[in-house]
């Protein structure tokens, strides 16, 4: 299962001549780091920065919006709540492709092509999963707590910030992890909106490595690929517990 990864790391430390040996050799002789240096040079700091900024902004925005909406659906009154919720759920079934071009048109009309807001803001529309998840989560908090707080004179937003929000930390990690993952690895949307080198994100830079098939050394490709995964791997290692619980629990409501 993990073999491609192992091979990727090994390969990135080898000279190309060794990678292409047939049958393949699995120990780097000599072990070189030049692939990584070239990869960094090729990818550039800007690319990493763009990806990080993009992922962070999207995650932040989606969390804030979903938290608020989830709380509202769970605890507050909204006109037409049931209908809205129904539309929410149904929208998941629609394959995203349908919206791709119109979304592009909207972004173009706003003058956001090839801008940060162009890639980030449309993601704020992806609050369905988060809202649904937070709503379920908040529903499990007993009414009594809410009522007690209200009797004690707390306002609605006050109750939210002081009681519900702190309790939601595990749920927030789960949704944040999923959203960050999707943003970091997103390819098709950034491909659609961005078109200059300085705006590029990692997934785009990686895909360009394959354009002229054999002119970029395989070692550099592997090194770049691994580099693109490192930030996410780091986050994953630290957040693994929440991550697995989070994704697992979304399937548990049955």
């Amino acid at each position, binding site marked *: 299962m993990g073999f491609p990864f192992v091979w990727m790391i090994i390969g990135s430390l080898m000279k190309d001549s060794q990678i292409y040996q047939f049958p393949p050799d699995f120990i780097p002789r000599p072990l070189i780091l030049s692939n990584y240096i070239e990869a960094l040079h090729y990818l550039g700091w800007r690319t990493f920065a763009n990806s990080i900024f993009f992922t962070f902004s999207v995650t932040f925005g989606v969390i804030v919006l979903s938290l608020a909406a989830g709380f509202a659906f769970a605890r507050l*009154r909204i006109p037409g709540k049931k209908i809205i919720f129904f539309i929410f759920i149904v929208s998941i079934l629609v*394959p995203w492709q349908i919206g*791709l*071009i119109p979304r592009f048109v*909207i972004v173009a009309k706003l003058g956001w092509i090839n801008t940060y807001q162009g890639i980030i803001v449309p*993601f704020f529309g992806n609050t369905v999963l988060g809202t649904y998840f937070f709503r379920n989560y908040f529903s499990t908090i007993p009414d009594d707590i809410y009522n007690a707080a209200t009797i004690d004179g707390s306002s609605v937003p006050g109750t939210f910030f002081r009681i519900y929000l702190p309790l939601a930390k595990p749920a927030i990690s789960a949704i944040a992890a999923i959203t960050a993952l999707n943003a970091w690895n997103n*390819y098709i949307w950034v491909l659609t909106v961005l078109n200059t080198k300085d705006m590029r994100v990692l997934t785009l830079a990686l895909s360009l490595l394959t354009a002229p098939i054999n002119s970029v050394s395989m070692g550099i490709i592997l090194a770049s690929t691994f580099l693109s995964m490192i930030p996410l791997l780091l986050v994953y290692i630290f957040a693994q517990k929440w991550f697995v619980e989070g994704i697992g629990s979304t399937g548990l409501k049955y």
Partner: protein
Amino acid sequence: MRRFIKKRFNLSQKNEELFWGIAFSAPGLIFFTIFMLVPIIMGFVLSFYRWDVIRPMRFIGFDNFVKIFTGDPKMGQVAISTVLYTLEVIPASVIISLIFAILLTKIVRFRSFFQSIYFLPLVASTVAISLVWRYVYSANFGLLNSMLRFFLDENIDWLQNPRFALLAVSVIMIWKNIAFNIILFLAAVRNVPDHLYEAARIDGCRELGLFKYITIPAIKPTIVLVTILTVVTSFYNGFDVVRVLTQGGPLYKTSIYVYYMFEQGFDKLKIGYSSAISFIFFIVIAIFTVIQLQFQRED
């Protein structure tokens, strides 16, 4: 602030909840409407037009749909590729991950280590793993060929060969799906109440029977969920793989619906036609999902 609002609107507790209900949910709903709902509706509408971004739009009614079914010679291949892709990816992704999940529950030692390994493909971007797999599939230097050396006469370029290209792409997708599905199945299997197993054991049920009569029925809703999710993500991510590795070729053999739709829309600038393709696709998926949910409801 709160007292101000209360006095201003003379609000009772109930109405205060209404006010905040709207206030809290509005931002999310607004973004959802603008960037999700409107594009979806627009998408459907666009399929009735001809548009190439440069010239103005022209209403052409059902022409795009007619073209899909009769006028486009490549559409047949696209449909075949899509069906094959679906048949290759979905069952394998679900079944293999189920098996792995069950195996994982039996292995007590090093469990979190194995769990991490299985989870890894999920963290990597589809673009990244496509690049790595490209090497595996390479004709003269590929890992796969070197391992099959004893069975093959000549080296096969898996991604360029019309017979195998789609299969190659499918395998990558299955590999990625398994990672995610295992997590869901693990959670589901772990949640089956012990007393069900005990009752069955008392009745004399043995290991394989336990699996068949308790485990599977108990996690059926999860199986449905996993299947739906697999379908959705396979088409979403499948695009990435095809774009990076084969660009729909060779001979359109790997042009699954998703990819063809993008290609027509953005490479060939036939936006109306592209939208019509997505529309049809949506209907197919919707029917499929409804059938899936009916299947679940029967329990």
